[in-house]
C-alpha cells in the first residue's frame, strides 16, 4: 500500500500542481470580474455568481452550447463512432496490406499536428482552388462560410476517427470468434450478428469510447483554426467562445465561469454515460 502510494505520487504531484490547482484557481477567477488589462486587472472584485447569471442570459453562450452539442453529436457520437466502428469491423478480415494502408491514412489524420491539419482543411474547403470544389465541380462554393458546422463535423470526423477505430479493433478482438461463427452457423445476417452478438459484447467499449471522444470533442479548439468561430458566430463552439471572450474581450473572469460551466456539462454527460455503463452489468 505504501509502495503503491510511492508509485502514484509523482503523477499525482504533477497533476495536482498543473491540473487541479490551476483548475481550482480558474474556478475562483470565475467568481470575479478579473481582466487581463484595464482597471480590473489591478483590483479585480468578487462578483459572486453574476458571471454565471450573465452566462445564462448570454445569447452567444447559448448559441455556443448548442453548436457544441451539434458538434459533439455529429462528429463524435455519430461520425467518429460509426466510421471508426465500420473501419474496425470491415478491416478485421481484409488482407494485411490493405488494412495497413487504410489504417496508415486514418492514423495519419490523427497524429498530424493540428496547426498543419488546419491548413490542410482550409485548402480542402477553399473557395477557389479547394480540393472539394475541384472534385465536386462546384468552383466558388465557400463551404466554410455557407456550411460551417457541416464542415467542422466533416473535419473532426476525419481527424478523430483513428481513436475509435483502434479502440473498436481491440474490442472486436475480444469477441470470441466462436460466437460470431455460432451466429453464422444458424444463418444470422450481418446485421443480426452485430445486434445480437457483437454489440452486447463491446457495449463497455462503446461507452468508454463515446465518453472519451465526446469529452475531447466538446473541448476541441481546432474549429478555431478553421473558421475562427465564424462566419458571424455560426461555428463558435464553447471552447472557441471561451477563447474569444478571454482574448478578444479580455474578460478572464467571465471566460473562467464559462469554462466551469463547460466542465459541469461534461460532468453531466459523463454521469449519464456511466449510468448507462453500470446498467450493463
Amino acid at each position, binding site marked *: 500500500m505504501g509502495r503503491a502510494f510511492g508509485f502514484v505520487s509523482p503523477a499525482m504531484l504533477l497533476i495536482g500542481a498543473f491540473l487541479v490547482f490551476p483548475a481550482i484557481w480558474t474556478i475562483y477567477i470565475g467568481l470575479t470580474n478579473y481582466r487581463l488589462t484595464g482597471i480590473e486587472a489591478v483590483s479585480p472584485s468578487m462578483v459572486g455568481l453574476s458571471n454565471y447569471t450573465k452566462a445564462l442570459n448570454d445569447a452567444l453562450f447559448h448559441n455556443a452550447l448548442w453548436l457544441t452539442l451539434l458538434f459533439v453529436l455529429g462528429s463524435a457520437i455519430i461520425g467518429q463512432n460509426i466510421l471508426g466502428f465500420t473501419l474496425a469491423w470491415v478491416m478485421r478480415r481484409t488482407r494485411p496490406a490493405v488494412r495497413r494502408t487504410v489504417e496508415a491514412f486514418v492514423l495519419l489524420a490523427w497524429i498530424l499536428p493540428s496547426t498543419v491539419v488546419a491548413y490542410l482543411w482550409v485548402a480542402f474547403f477553399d473557395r477557389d482552388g479547394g480540393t472539394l470544389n475541384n472534385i465536386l465541380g462546384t468552383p466558388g462554393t465557400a463551404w466554410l462560410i455557407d456550411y460551417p458546422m457541416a464542415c467542422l463535423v466533416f473535419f473532426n470526423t476525419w481527424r478523430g476517427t483513428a481513436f475509435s477505430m483502434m479502440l473498436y479493433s481491440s474490442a472486436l478482438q475480444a469477441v*470470441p470468434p466462436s460466437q460470431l461463427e*455460432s451466429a*453464422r*452457423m*444458424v*444463418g*444470422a445476417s450481418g446485421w443480426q450478428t452485430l445486434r*445480437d*452478438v457483437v454489440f*452486447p459484447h463491446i457495449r463497455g467499449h462503446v461507452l468508454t469510447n463515446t465518453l472519451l471522444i465526446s469529452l475531447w470533442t466538446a473541448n476541441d479548439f481546432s474549429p478555431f483554426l478553421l473558421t475562427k468561430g465564424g462566419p458571424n458566430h455560426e461555428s463558435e463552439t464553447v471552447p472557441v467562445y471561451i477563447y474569444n471572450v478571454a482574448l478578444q474581450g479580455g474578460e478572464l473572469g467571465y471566460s473562467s465561469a464559462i469554462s466551469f460551466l463547460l466542465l459541469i456539462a461534461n460532468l453531466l454527460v459523463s454521469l449519464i454515460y456511466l449510468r448507462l455503463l453500470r446498467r450493463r452489468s
Partner: protein
Amino acid sequence: MAGIDIEGLATVYPNGVRAVDGLDLHVADGEFFALLGPSGCGKTTLLRTIAGLESATEGKVRIDAVDVTRTEPGKRGVAMVFQDYALFPHMSVSENITYPLKVRRVSAATRAETAERTAGELSLDGLLERKPAQLSGGQQQRVALARAIASRGKVLLLDEPLSNLDARLRLEARTFLKKLQRDLGITTVFVTHDQAEALALADRIAVMEAGKLRQLGSPREVFARPANTFVANFIGSTPMNLLPGTVSSTSGSETYVDEVGVVSVAGGSLSAATFSAPAGAEVTVGVRPEYLTLASGDVTGPALRGQVVVAENLGTQSLVSVDCDGTLIGVTVPEENEPEPGTTVVLTAPASRVLLYDRESGDLLARQPATVA
C-alpha cells in the same frame, strides 16, 4: 438425417498451411463419428470445412447427397457446438437455445415451446432463466448442445465437446452424450484429441495426422490392429511399446506367416502371428503394455528379460517400466502383483497381440489390410 461425403478435400490457410490435405471420407446416416489426432493435425479445420466456416480449396463436401461445397454455413443444415461452447453471455439459457429460431423469425410462442422441450430432453429444466455465467461447465455444455439441437440440423458437429470439463465431469458427460446421440439418431461428427474418448463414444474413428487420414475403422479395429506406428502410438491409454526388432524365424510361406513367427527384440524374442515379412526383415515390434505378462520365474518359449525400473499406480493396475537390454518396456500388472524396482522379470505376450510394422514406412505388416471399411 443425412450422411456426409467428403471427396479429395483440401483446405489451405492463407499462410500456406495445408491443414486438410486430400481427404476422402464417408460418414453414414445416423453414425457417431470421431475425428481423432494430435494437436494441429487438422481435425478442427476439417470440421469447420464441413460446417462451411472455412472454404474448401479443393474437393467436395456433400451432405445428404447435395453438394454444399460453396453453400453458406447457415444453409447447410448443420449444427455445431464449439469447444468453448460459444454461449452468448448476455442471453438467458432459453434465449440461447432458441437463438437459431429467432434468426429464422419463428414466433415467440413456438420458441418458448421449443426451449421448454429441448431443455427437458437435456435435463436443463429450471435453468432456463439463468445466464450462462451462472451455470457449471457441464450445464453450459448441455445448453450448447441444446442450442445445436434446437436448430434442427441434419448433421451435428462437435469440436472437442468435453475438453473444457474437469476429469470427473467428463466421464459423466461422455455417457450422457452417447445416450443422447443414440436417442436422437442424428449423424454426428466429433473432434477429439483424447483417444479414450474416441474409443468410448464413436461408432467409427478416423485417425488423422498432418491433414491426412492415417486409419479409419471401428474403435475395436483401431485399437487392436493399428494400421501404422503412428496410430499404434496414439491409441491406448498407456502408449504401445514400439521396439526395433528383426524377424528371426518364420513358419508358413517365406513372406506370409500363417501360423507363428519369432522376432528378436530387446535382447530377447517374442512370437508373432500372421504377418507378412521374410526372416531377417527389420521391423518395429508393437505390443501393448496390457498384453504383456510379467513373470518372475523362468518361462519356456520366446520371452524378454529385464529389470523393473519404476512403477506407476493406475488404480487397479500398475504400469511397470522394465529395462530390457537398454530398452524401456511398459507392462501393466494388477495392483497386487506390483514388483519392487530392481527385480528381474520375464515378459511374454500372446503371439496374436504382437504386431509387426515395417521399420521404414511404419505400416502394419499384415496379411489383410488393416483398414476394413
